[in-house]
């Protein structure tokens, strides 16, 4: 396959893609409006300290959402991300707590994430297991293995460098933004500039057509799950520095959060639609919304109710739109 087939893509140039994004996302506009209302009720949302607080929370979610986006693009779903995050956070605290440990922590954590991704990908492609069940099962297995290892005891042995990256700021910019920016650029190039990215869109848009033009659909799909696992592991390591005392539930609810953020950012759950800018925008909006709930003074558990509604509403809007079009 050396012939370069041009597949029309959403993001040919940035301004068109942003315009497209807004037109495509009634939901997003509604949420921005909601935020403006929340902001007028509680101006504290936009105070510098609160913005810095939100900025710190953005990177861990953003990194996971990028992985989740890759999987959703190829018609999948990755529920194991939260378990991978907790496991890599536990790995980060399982050593002596010195910076030198990172030599072991990083390969172990990232390797675990990749391994889980391989398992998910193989189950989905080679054994036809539905993505949600495959990733739910690996999530549970990993949870059991992790609990057996830690015996439920939390640990605070986070290497100082990870604390710096996870919770530190440099001139008002959270340090964890740097790995996020690096990953986002890589993801953008991979998805929107490379042949592999085009293949992913084709696999998600129409797996049969992709197969017919000679794309190794299984390999593309497995790669998406592996990348999602690795990104979740990176996010878990960063988060261990943010929370500084790691129990078995670091990253709890991130599987839901990452899906909510992705659908808000216009990643279609039916596959083949959406991209990196949308995913990051979705993550930013979710962090803002979750924060607004607390600042406005609503009970914190409203967050879960809100996320549930967003998933259903986003999926419904998408279906309604594709009906109008066809």
């Amino acid at each position: 396959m050396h012939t370069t087939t041009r597949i029309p893509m959403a993001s040919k140039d940035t301004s068109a893609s942003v315009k497209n994004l807004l037109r495509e996302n009634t939901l997003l506009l509604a949420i921005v409006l909601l935020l403006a209302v929340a902001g007028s009720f509680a101006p504290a949302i936009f105070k510098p300290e609160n913005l810095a607080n939100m900025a710190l929370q953005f990177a861990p979610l953003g990194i996971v959402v990028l992985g989740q986006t890759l999987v959703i693009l190829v018609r999948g779903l990755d529920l194991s991300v939260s378990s991978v995050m907790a496991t890599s956070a536990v790995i980060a605290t399982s050593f002596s707590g010195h910076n030198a440990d990172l030599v072991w922590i990083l390969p172990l954590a990232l390797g675990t994430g990749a391994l889980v991704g391989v398992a998910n990908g193989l189950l989905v492609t080679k054994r036809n297991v539905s993505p949600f069940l495959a990733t739910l099962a690996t999530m549970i297995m990993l949870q059991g293995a992790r609990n057996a290892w830690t015996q439920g005891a939390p640990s605070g042995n986070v290497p100082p460098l990870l604390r710096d990256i996870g919770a530190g700021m440099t001139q008002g910019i959270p340090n964890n933004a740097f790995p996020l920016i690096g990953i986002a650029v890589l993801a953008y190039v991979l998805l929107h500039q490379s042949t592999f990215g085009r293949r992913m869109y084709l696999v998600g848009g129409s797996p049969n057509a992709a197969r017919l033009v000679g794309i190794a659909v299984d390999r593309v799909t497995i790669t998406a799950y592996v990348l999602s696992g690795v990104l979740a592991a990176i996010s878990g390591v960063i988060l261990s520095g943010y929370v500084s005392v790691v129990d078995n539930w670091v990253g709890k609810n991130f599987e839901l959060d990452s899906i909510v953020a992705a659908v808000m950012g216009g990643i279609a759950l039916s596959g083949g639609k959406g991209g990196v800018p949308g995913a990051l925008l979705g993550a930013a909006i979710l962090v803002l919304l979750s924060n607004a709930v607390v600042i406005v003074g609503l009970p914190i558990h409203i967050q879960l109710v809100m996320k549930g509604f967003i998933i259903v509403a986003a999926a419904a809007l998408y279906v309604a739109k594709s009906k109008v079009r066809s």
Partner: protein
Amino acid sequence: MTTSHPNPAAADVRAASKKTSAWFQGNERLVVVVVLLLLLLATGSFVSERFRHLGNLQNVYEQSVGLALVSAGQTMVVLTGGIDLSVGSMISLMSVLTSGLIDGNPERVVWVVAGVLALGLLLGAMNGALTLWLGIHPLIVTLGTGAALQGLTLLYSSDSAGSVPPEFEYMAYGRILGFPVGATVTLLVFAGLAHLLHATRQGRYVYAVGGDPHAATLMGLPTRRVLVSVYAFSGLCAAITALYVVSRFGVGQPYTGANYTLASVTPVVIGGTMLSGGKGGLMGTLLGVYLMGLLNNVLNFMDISSHFQLVIQGLIVVIAVSSFHGRKAQPV
């Protein structure tokens, strides 16, 4: 079968043997599960003297009630090609509502129980209706409603709520002629439902809709009504499970149902019900429930920690599901 036949006796024998072999062909999965159950019984007796005691097996039988109840609803939904990921949150919500609203008053029991059962039906029907009206895959709908309901549960109570009078525990601990009430009623209801599913028109509709919803609609079957009904049934099962859980622990807790979401799918897929719909049944699920109960029991006797039991549960789901080569690809 009253039609006359030239050689009734021979025809009966032939028909019977044909029927038997056809049954085996359609139910290899049940045979596999029964063999696994026997293997587990053998392993258990080998591992521990105490395993063989009738009291131990009775424990397994009684501890399986919650899982059996919630899996019954899940089976119906999966038979139509759907999935209900909100059962865990529904159980949590209704368990805190039950003990929270009764709050120790015996005179409130009847009303609260009736209310919770109605709520279960309503929440389930809502899942079904949302799936139909919005045209979204049930996985996404129930993931969303599940999150929202868990949020509502925590808004109502973020800790154990209220209490129930001692009589409420009859469902979990009562005995009739030495038989545990809850477990035995569950077994009988399962058998009754399995019969209805196979022998009644409404039951066959469930299979028809799961096999090919489009064809079912073309044939004039009430596809929409069937779909809403199975989700409503799943909600009702979640409500009964919630009542049982409160009866067993004496109080409702906001995360009590969390583990039921995956756990309810496990016996369904072990029992041979296809996630793509249209194939399987309740008896397989019931055997799957006992298999999981017995497995945990044997693992306990082997001193394997509950953490590893989670690993093993995950492995079993994966093996059970991946050993299928379905006619059609499984849904999301």
